[in-house]
């Protein structure tokens, strides 16, 4: 009996990377603890998040058990579906808060840009793998087009933050695929040069956000409010923090979106610099492990996919903490594995599943 149980457990956890999973679990744990405080001890919210977590675990397990080449097959259909849905949003989308980001399918509302977060790197990894060994500048040009289409569509919604993040995920693939440093430096220079032009074409609210980012006191009750209150929360936390459930900024409603995008401010207020440092270490461990997995991946597709997932994970963590602590402008990015929200949690665990799949299916290939 014990033998059977052990074997079943063995079979179930065979593809699970313990280190990666341990880090993820710790982060989710931090998230739940902080969420409890951020929602004024709402058991409902914590339970909901736990259910999402359970569902995400199942998906992670499934994805971890799918070999990378099978995942690769889904690349083109997913990408095409994503683009179609984005076009659909442009024509039939539902307007919420002045942005057309949602598509009403009758039974559910979906946000196709979420799908694109995985579909785009998948598509690019598939593409580079297809032409592996003979990748030339034309392939990078094609890849650039594959990036620009969804980025443009999402930017039009308008959702500049997501567009930039998705563009970044594409660029990571290009970088890892070996895009020449000269081109990278050249593009960076071009971006800097076209800055003023882009500024001229930004929406007022986008400009406002950037200006407010530069000086949050510009509009402390308007767009600068989030940033100002988050900085106050983190700063007032000090080295050791105010203690769990004791954050005044949190519990007196001064922090907006404190269980979702701004949950880090709650964490920073209640657990202080020590907590923040530990959180950074957790993320670093997770990302470091993911980089190791990526480095050891056997196929180009696996490398590119794993690399993109890893760097995106880092990007979300960095952008979120940077935005909450006032280093970056406010964009709608949740803190990976910590922020409340089922969709993000599920996407992240799918990403972890991909990494585990890459790791688990490595040996068979290298030998």
């Amino acid at each position: 009996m014990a033998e059977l149980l052990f074997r079943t457990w063995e079979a179930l956890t065979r593809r699970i990377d313990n280190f990666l999973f341990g880090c993820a679990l710790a982060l989710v744990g931090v998230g739940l603890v902080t969420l409890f405080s951020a929602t004024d001890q709402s058991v409902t919210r914590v339970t909901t998040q736990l259910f999402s977590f359970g569902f995400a675990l199942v998906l992670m397990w499934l994805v971890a058990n799918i070999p990378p080449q099978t995942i690769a097959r889904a690349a083109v259909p997913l990408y095409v579906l994503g683009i179609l849905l984005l076009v659909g949003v442009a024509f039939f989308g539902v307007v919420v808060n002045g942005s057309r980001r949602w598509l009403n399918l009758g039974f559910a509302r979906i946000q196709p840009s979420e799908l694109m977060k995985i579909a785009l790197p998948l598509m690019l990894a598939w593409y580079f793998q297809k032409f592996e060994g003979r990748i030339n500048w034309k392939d990078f040009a094609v890849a650039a087009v594959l990036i620009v289409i969804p980025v443009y569509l999402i930017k039009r919604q308008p959702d500049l933050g997501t567009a930039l993040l998705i563009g970044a995920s594409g660029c990571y693939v290009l970088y890892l695929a070996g895009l020449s440093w000269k081109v990278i430096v050249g593009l960076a220079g071009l971006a800097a040069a076209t800055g003023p032009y882009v500024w001229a074409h930004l929406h007022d609210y986008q400009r406002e956000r950037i200006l407010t980012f530069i000086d949050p006191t510009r509009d402390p009750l308007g767009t600068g409010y989030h940033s100002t209150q988050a900085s106050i929360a983190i700063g007032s936390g000090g080295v050791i923090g105010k203690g769990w459930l004791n954050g005044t900024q949190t519990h007196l409603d001064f922090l907006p979106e404190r269980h979702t995008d701004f949950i880090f401010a709650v964490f920073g207020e209640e657990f202080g610099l020590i907590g923040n440092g530990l959180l950074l270490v957790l993320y670093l461990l997770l990302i470091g492990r993911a980089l190791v997995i990526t480095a050891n991946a056997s196929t180009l597709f696996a490398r590119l996919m794993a690399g993109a997932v890893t760097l995106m994970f880092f990007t979300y963590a960095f952008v979120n903490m940077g935005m909450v602590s006032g280093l970056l402008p406010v964009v709608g990015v949740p803190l990976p594995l910590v922020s409340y929200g089922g969709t993000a949690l599920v996407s992240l665990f799918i990403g972890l599943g991909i990494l585990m799949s890459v790791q688990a299916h490595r040996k068979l290939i290298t030998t």
Partner: protein
Amino acid sequence: MMRRRLFSSRGNGYGGGRRFGSPEMRNPERELFLFQRRLAVAGVLVLLAFCGLFARFVYLQMFQHEHYSTLAESNRIAIVPIVPNRGVITDRNGIVLAQSYSAYTLELTPARIANLEATIDALAEIVDVQPRDRRRFKKLLEESKNFETLPLRTRLSDEEVARFAVNRYRFPGVEIKARLFRQYPYGEIASHVVGYIGRINEHDVERIAKWEAGPNYKGSDYMGKVGVELSYERELHGTTGWEEVEVDAAGRAVRTLSRTPPASGNNLRLSLDIKLQEAAEAAFGDRRGAMVAIDPTTGDILAFISKPGFDPNLFVDGIDSVSWAALNESPDKPMLNRPLRGSYPPGSTIKPYLALAALTSGKRNPQQSTFDPGFYQLPGSSYRFRDDKPGGHGTVDMYKSIVVSCDTYYYTLAGETDIDDTARFLAQLGFGHETGVDIEGELTGTLPSRDWKRRRFADKQYREEHRKWYLGDSISAGIGQGYNSFTPMQQALAIATIANNGVAFVPHLVKSVVNLKSGEERLIAPQPSHTIAAKAEDIAVIRNALVGVNKEGTGAKAFLGAKYVSGGKTGTAQVYSLKGEKYSASKIDERLRDHAWFVAYAPADKPRIAVAVLVENGGFGADAAAPIARKVFDYYLLGVTEPGPAPAHLPGTKETEDESD
């Protein structure tokens, strides 16, 4: 397995093909190395980025910790003022003239309401909203700042409060508040004394800033506007208490951290006797005018009448524009505080004081007589200063000059007296400067002198001959006309000072300030302010003559049958210069008729009350003003409410031209 191999073979099958950027590299090992190097670069960047974040956290949580802690505290803690109870105003016998009560008000925050009109219409279905309320609200709206909360209705009934509570969800930006209100039970009676409170406006904010009382007015929406409500504002207001509360981002109080209770304002005990005030106002009927009654031995103002008055209750929750216009534009000027701000020529009421000045300076003795042919001529001039009695009073000594109010006697005296000496003497009685009464807005009146005339006509438009003092000016001033102009308050103080044998008090409407908590009572101006420079026996001469006026002179008719002995003096203040014509009340527009004065005190031997009565356009003082003084004395000294004959108050009903005032 199959698939995996397939995948791996495809994955590892390197075709020829040029590599972008580095065509010579085809070796998988080399490729993996290059890939790993790129990954390592990315890894270093990740590490650097996290170091950047950590540096930011160190900056925020160590170096800026104190700064942000302060911000968090000020976020968290709000100081909520607790408005103190305003002191109660009572009359000298403890009868309440102004009190505060708490009531529910329906308040709107216009900044939070999209369609104000529609909201008010909808509210009108739930609570009673009169056109008057709408007008008043509109006026408040025009005067208010953006984020202020303004009352639409006050004094909601319990039923209205309940009905609104049920419908509350329909009205964002509308709320019910409990506020302290002010009520004036006597309404129009003594309205100019008590005054009223109103919403604090910009002008008031300046006033508060001048007192350096800004913090004490946090949370206060109302303050005194006129009368003792204003002049004793700082006594009545009390000390604002504070509550330190923890608030959430929406400003809702979560819990109280500490509390400093407010201290109620002090109560005021007026020197006014409200029953006497009522009797006096009743005696005035619907005539315009002023009266001030003073207790000569203390300076207590016993009655202070300004007719017509106004209802101060109208002002408490903001007066609506129609009522305001009615008050403000009325030709009867109900808002004018006549005892303080009405300045009228004293006419013959000045004569006893000039006589006293002459006695003091030695220019006259009581027995010295002047012959009165009915007019006075300056040496070398043909112009005749006319006496009121066409044939003259014959031989007139000082007693007679006051009793019959002989003009010629005083023309002659004025011709021999330097105007500056006169001014100096009269100033001691309170003329020409503020009496110092304890409510605001007092006029100084005009006490003419050379210096005064020079200043009065100092402007460039006047020439030197305008500024020069002429003997003719002195002659007019000698019977209280010319440039002379006094307020009823000054007149009352002067007669009270005479009645008190020259010992003057600063007149005061407030007897004492009572601290509710300690029970301590502080008297206002309990000590005499000064004694006039006149000998007691000279004052006795004047007082004897004043008694004569009411016994056998111009005041005799009004005081016929009085159960006490009184002293008084009539006076008529010309509104319209007749230039030698005979005055006929019936021929002149009512508003151009003379003002009637009467100053008096009683009982004659030990005066307890002194009054100055002015009836605007009342004609002769003896007819219009003296009967009012009689009624007031009868009430005050005897407790009689319906004394003597009704005053003949309808000018034009009889010819008075052959009567001297």
